[in-house]
């Protein structure tokens, strides 16, 4: 009974997303389902229309840049927060969580004023700076969690054996923590790539991101290319999650069979 309910809810979670796939091959101009006929025309439109390609490139560049800056500033902070105790730590923790706690529409308004005053609205730099602030909380939490599980005896052993602290960091600390770094950077990248509300109000035409373009085309209800973009994005997620789930499951099976 409970299992049936669980699977019914899981179906409710995944099934609706698949409807974007047939929609992307539809010839219909509006949201008609089932599609009247199928073709590939809107795929051709997506891959040739600069109004879609430019926001796609913008999003990739902005997400990559903000992920790099985010990692650069949160990595030292994660070491300080996990490894030392000091006065004001609780306050720093609250500051680090602020961009997650504040509603995105309020931050959108704030950046609209603030970046506008610095003439940074409608620029890539403005969107990157805003996205770095927005990515800090989640990336920090992920990195700090992996740092908490790190066995410091490994570092002590390396230093006992004569490694300098920097050597220890690059030969021991960083390689052990690499999965944590990668996941944390990935969260920063995706957070920026999917961020809609702030981009909507500050990215303008030149720095328009893909979510902004998608939002506009959903709202105007005019551009069927949105179905193509949705299908491409969903396919990436579908393949990525399935591959990771299968790999995890295999690894667990292997561990069980080894005893």
């Amino acid at each position, binding site marked *: 009974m*409970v*299992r049936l309910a*669980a699977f019914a*809810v899981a179906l409710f*979670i995944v099934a*609706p*997303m698949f*409807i*974007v796939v047939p*929609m992307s091959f539809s010839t219909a101009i*509006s949201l008609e389902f089932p599609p009247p006929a199928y073709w590939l025309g809107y795929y051709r439109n997506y891959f040739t229309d600069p109004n879609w390609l430019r926001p796609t490139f913008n999003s990739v560049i902005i997400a990559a840049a903000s992920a790099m800056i985010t990692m650069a500033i949160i990595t*030292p*902070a994660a*070491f*300080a927060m996990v*490894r*030392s*105790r000091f006065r004001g730590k609780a306050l*720093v923790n*609250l*500051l*680090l969580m*602020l*961009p997650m*706690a*504040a*509603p*995105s*529409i*309020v*931050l*959108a*308004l704030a950046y609209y*004023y*603030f970046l506008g005053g610095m003439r940074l609205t409608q620029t890539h730099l403005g969107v990157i700076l805003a996205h*770095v*602030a927005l990515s*800090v909380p989640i990336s920090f*939490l992920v990195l700090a969690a992996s740092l908490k599980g790190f066995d410091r005896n490994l570092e002590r052993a390396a230093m006992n054996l004569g490694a*300098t*602290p*920097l050597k220890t*960091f690059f030969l021991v*600390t960083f390689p052990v923590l690499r999965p944590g770094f990668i996941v944390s950077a990935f969260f920063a990248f*995706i957070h920026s790539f*999917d961020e*809609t*509300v702030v981009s909507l*109000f500050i990215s303008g035409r030149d720095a328009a991101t893909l*979510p902004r373009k998608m939002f506009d085309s*959903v*709202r105007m209800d005019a551009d069927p290319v*949105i*179905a193509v973009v*949705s299908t491409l*994005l*969903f396919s990436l997620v579908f393949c*990525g999650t399935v591959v990771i*789930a299968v790999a995890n*499951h295999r690894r667990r099976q292997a561990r069980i069979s080894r005893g």
Partner: protein
Amino acid sequence: MGARVSGRGLSRALYSAGGSSHWLLLAPVVLFLAVFAVLPLLKVVQFSLTDPKVSLDNYVHVFGSGFYLKTMLGTFMTAFIVAALCLVLAYPVAYVAARAGGWIAALLLLAVAMSFWTSFLVRTYAWMVILGSQGPIVALLKTLGFQSPQLLFTNFSAILAMVHIMLPFMVMALYAVMSKIDPNLLRAATSLGARPFQAFRTVFLPLSAPGIVTGFSFVFIICLGFYVTPVLLGSPRSQMIAGVIGDHIEYSLAWGEASAIAVVLLVITLALFAIYNRYVGLDRMWG
């Protein structure tokens, strides 16, 4: 943010607990957030108090107007309904995933991960197709003989899509707690004569309470400030508070008034976070 931190200073900062070197490590992120998070938010507070003139008029207006009070009340109601529905739907999924393990858990968590990582614009668009006037549900209702109802652009469509979008968060919050509950506790309860449901109610349910609190608070707080989905799918006549702020940015020049509503929303949200942090702890949010 010294560009030339000496190797010795850096290593001392990374590996020792004493001294004040931790501030060296914290400086970049603290300075960055002070300039690019705190200052912009203070700017909103400043506008709310000074535009068009220095006064509390904007707040008097916000709290005195039936429209804003109705919007705020409606937003709270919607957020509560979404969080409650998410809890009811997510609980069995997290429960089965935590208790069954194996391929069943793998499959359920795969469904959750797939939705979690898919942009919520994609999910919102999917619901527009499903609930649209030329969509499958309306077609089904028509063949069953009902006259075609308006599904899209109603509170119903907004709530349905928000529940769908927030469900993965709720499942993960519950699963993080449930997967750590020792199954021997349930076995002990049943071997002492408790019926399965009794064992669940008196042992498992209370132990899963931290996950319930975390998931519910998180979904509720996010929904208070939800912009995209209600704006695209909801009824234009009963907007949520974020939508009203967005309209102000786009169409009106009443900066002071928009800022005052934003400050009210910000204060309510931060207060809820502070209460949550005080009683549960923000670091518990991620299991």
